[in-house]
């Protein structure tokens, strides 16, 4: 017997003296800790054994092994393993083969249901065909004395629920469980079987630590098939579509449920209604957020589309080095020492924005012009400020700059010729941790098409303040600020060049038309050849940029942070009107280009002028005063056509940006332009084919109204505000 004979040896757990070791007990055990361990996870322990006072009507106890023994003479019923929503499970020995099996008796209340019997037979047959190392094998099924039963492989082990109850799992262990489950799910999904009730209770680990999924398809089997029962599942693990009778439930419901399980393994809690990224709850690799949140998307189309895809992502995270602040990544949370020390604060997001980003060559001296340095071209990306550093994405490249590596910061300014409005950028100087070289980063928060002068300075100041505060909090040192704005060698985007050329040529043409009153060879060359060429170049440049952007957004590296989770939903709402507007804008543009060409060709005399048209006769011989109205008319019409072309481009670009939830103002303006164009066209339809004009006007009007209605919705307005702050969205 061991009585509280205290020794001088303290208990490693609580520090109190341990009982003296006796001969029979080589290792004394601290009694207080023994009880404490029963307490720790005891609250949720076997609710059947300790029914809480809240359960007023405890379910009737399952039949004891003795009670069912005579119904199953071929088995020796050994023990009742437990009961779930789907039935009662017994551990049994199959006498003929002398093997242990799990005997599941389904829904005892269905004893006399003929339709159930028929469905049971059909489904069970399908399930019995599933043969996979990570799926609990079904040996047999049938009905005896009105009881439907399934004979399954007996898995000698524990279920995942028991492991989670002991506290959250280490991220590595939690992740290791996921790939085999995905593999099994993929296998079953390919055979057309959906589990519908993935939850920790159904994920078993045997004595060798292998994972097996139990109860495949049982949820569907037990459901009635006519409404509510069909949705059978376990509410916290049910995908949103499982709760909605009108929506189709497919294999992606299993992916959602597995997402809930993963979330629970990582954090020890189930996801709340307002989903919080796991990394905000516990210290884990932030990339896991993306995996978990993607699986937990409310809309099935946004989740992983296959279990295989889920698996690939998880495995990539398992093999890749962790994306964590370097001083924290190497702390193994499993070691006893680490769990004693208070955990460092979890990395938290401070500020994020879409931005034009550029990496500058090592700067010469702070605050001076760096004329000799090579020109830099900003590209569209994002900047995210975390409590431990900056994550900067520019193009396809993503870099991390730890706060500790920052050496200075301040305003940055492009040279006056590149930015006459003197737009401010945020400049940061840091020592590259990889190369040890000093480098600079400049970025401009937001990626609007046009920025009013004076609006960039306050935003830059805001970012600089946040950056300095974060740096102070992380390192305790103050981050020095450059005394004067750093004039960095910005190179205007080369894609802008054709646009500028086009606009210049167009202005020149209007001027020439006015002064000459007619078109000479030079003007015609400009109009018919050069101007369309620059225009085509501009269009190609724009299309290339758009394509690059689309590709980037499709790349899996672009993370979708929790704040942006509703954005894809809004984006899907906006997509159709934006597309309509883009099509209409594009057609208008095409019309404008053809019109301009026709104007040039008419002037050249290659095609006959429209009767009553203007500006086609030589006016050089006519006195200026007499010819003035014609000159003004000609220039105005040409100018108007150019302007129209401009608005068409504006509508097109706005529509494309609207699809990405950018520039709501531009999109509204475009919608209004389309409506005005439509109304004008409708009112003044004439010419050889008035019905074509009327039809097109109606389409323009409709597209404009549709886009406007969608843009005025409250949720869409909110999404437009939020989208620029969400990188990658």
């Amino acid at each position: 017997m061991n009585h509280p004979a205290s020794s001088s040896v303290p208990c490693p757990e609580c520090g109190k003296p341990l009982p003296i070791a006796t001969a029979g007990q080589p290792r004394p055990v601290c009694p207080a800790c023994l009880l404490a361990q029963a307490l720790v996870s005891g609250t949720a322990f076997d609710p059947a054994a300790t029914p809480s006072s809240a359960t007023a009507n405890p379910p009737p106890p399952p039949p004891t092994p003795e009670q069912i023994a005579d119904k199953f003479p071929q088995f020796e019923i050994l023990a009742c393993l437990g009961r779930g929503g789907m039935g009662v499970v017994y551990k049994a020995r199959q006498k003929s083969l002398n093997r242990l099996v799990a005997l599941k008796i389904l829904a005892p209340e269905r004893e006399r249901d003929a339709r159930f019997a028929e469905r049971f037979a059909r489904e069970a047959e399908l399930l019995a065909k599933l043969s996979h190392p990570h799926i609990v094998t079904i040996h047999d099924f049938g009905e005896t004395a009105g009881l439907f039963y399934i004979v399954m492989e007996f898995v000698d082990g524990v279920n995942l629920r028991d492991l989670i109850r002991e506290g959250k799992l280490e991220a590595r262990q939690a992740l290791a469980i996921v790939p085999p489950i995905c593999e099994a799910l993929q296998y079953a999904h390919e055979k057309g079987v959906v589990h519908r009730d993935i939850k920790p209770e159904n994920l078993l680990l045997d004595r060798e630590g292998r994972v097996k999924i139990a109860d495949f398809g049982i949820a569907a089997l037990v459901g009635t098939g006519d409404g509510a029962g069909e949705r059978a599942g376990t509410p916290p693990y049910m995908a949103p579509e499982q709760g909605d009778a009108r929506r189709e439930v497919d294999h992606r419901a299993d992916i959602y449920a597995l997402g809930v399980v993963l979330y629970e393994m990582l954090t020890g809690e189930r996801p709340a209604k307002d989903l919080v990224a796991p990394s905000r709850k516990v210290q884990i690799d932030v990339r896991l957020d993306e995996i978990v949140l993607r699986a937990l998307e409310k809309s099935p189309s946004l989740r992983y589309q296959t279990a295989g895809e889920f698996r690939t992502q998880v495995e990539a995270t398992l093999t890749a080095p962790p994306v964590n602040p370097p001083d924290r990544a190497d702390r193994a949370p499993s070691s006893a020492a680490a769990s004693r020390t208070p955990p460092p604060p979890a990395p938290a997001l401070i500020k994020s924005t879409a931005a034009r980003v550029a990496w500058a060559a090592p700067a010469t001296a702070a605050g001076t012009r760096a004329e000799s340095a090579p020109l830099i071209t900003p590209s569209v990306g994002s900047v995210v400020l975390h409590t431990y550093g900056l994550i900067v994405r520019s193009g396809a490249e993503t870099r991390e700059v730890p706060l500790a590596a920052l050496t200075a910061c301040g305003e940055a300014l492009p040279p006056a010729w590149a930015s006459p409005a003197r737009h401010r950028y945020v400049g940061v100087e840091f020592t590259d941790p990889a190369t040890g070289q000093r480098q600079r980063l400049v970025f401009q928060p937001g990626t609007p098409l046009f920025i009013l002068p004076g609006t960039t300075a306050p935003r830059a100041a805001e970012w600089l303040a946040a950056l300095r505060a974060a740096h102070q909090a992380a390192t305790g040192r103050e981050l020095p600020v450059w005394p004067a704005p750093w004039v960095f060698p910005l190179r205007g985007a080369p894609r802008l060049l054709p646009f500028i050329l086009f606009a210049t040529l167009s202005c020149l043409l209007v001027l020439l038309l006015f002064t000459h009153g007619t078109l000479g060879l030079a003007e015609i060359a400009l109009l018919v050849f050069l101007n369309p060429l620059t225009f085509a170049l501009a269009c190609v440049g724009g299309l290339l940029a758009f394509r690059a952007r689309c590709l980037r957004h499709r790349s899996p590296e672009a993370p979708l942070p929790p704040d942006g989770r509703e954005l894809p939903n809004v984006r899907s709402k906006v997509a159709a009107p934006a597309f309509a507007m883009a099509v209409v804008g594009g057609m208008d543009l095409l019309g404008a280009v053809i019109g301009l060409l026709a104007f040039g060709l008419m002037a050249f005399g290659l095609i006959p002028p429209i009767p009553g048209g203007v500006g086609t006769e030589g006016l050089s011989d006519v006195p200026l005063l007499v010819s003035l109205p014609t000159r003004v008319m000609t220039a105005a019409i040409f100018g108007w056509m150019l302007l129209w072309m401009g608005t068409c481009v504006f509508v097109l670009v706005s529509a494309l940006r609207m699809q990405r939830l950018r520039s709501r103002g531009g999109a509204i303006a475009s919608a209004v332009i389309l409506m005005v164009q439509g109304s004008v066209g409708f009112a003044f339809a004439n010419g050889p084919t008035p019905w074509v004009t009327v039809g097109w006007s109606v389409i323009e009007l409709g597209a404009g109204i549709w886009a406007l209605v969608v843009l005025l919705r409250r949720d869409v307005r909110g999404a437009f505000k939020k989208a620029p702050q969400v990188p990658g969205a």
Partner: protein
Amino acid sequence: MPTHFATTQWTLIHEAARGGDTAAVAALGALFETYWPPLYRYVRRQGHSAADTEDLVQGFFAHLLRLDGLRLADPDRGRFRAFLLGSLKHYLANQWHREHRLKRGGHDLVLSLDWQNAETGLGLDPADSASGPDALFDREWALALLEKVLADLAASEGDLDFARWKPFLSVGSERLPYAAIAAEFHLTEGAARVAVHRLRKRYRQRLRDEIARTLADPRLVEEELRSLFTALSE
């Protein structure tokens, strides 16, 4: 198991005592065999000699077995532990008047109690003597309970193996050196985790079953577990 709900041993005794059931006598005897050492030491601490204490505890037990004591009004009779201590105090207070009427050893049910063993615990807790005798009683009660649970567990697990696994029962799961366990028992880490978990699960179940045996209402298990833990950690 849900069957506890209506029939904990202590409830059984309660119910049966009204009719003077022999089943109650047997059930009480079973409980008493486990939990008499704390009583013995409690009486010893009151200043009685070893011989007197033996007599007193036997007498108290005889008194209980006659089921007279069970009919005593007790505000806290939901717990066997509290009931036993309350009754014992009551019994000790009255023993002056009863002593001469007691027939020592005159009852027919003799329990095999190892008096010598209960005696050994007495001198060994000088540091604790500052806390009151009631607290010491609770503490010893908890130890007796744990001892029973571990002994039962050892018997069902196989003694030799259990002695090696036992230390892991008192360590928090997140601090368990699974890798070391795996190496020691030639298992994979996953298997070690499962094995430890299962052992802990059985331990908890036994502990709870044992505690439930001493309660009128199994819903109080959690509460009783907490108070026993408090008694041990003081």
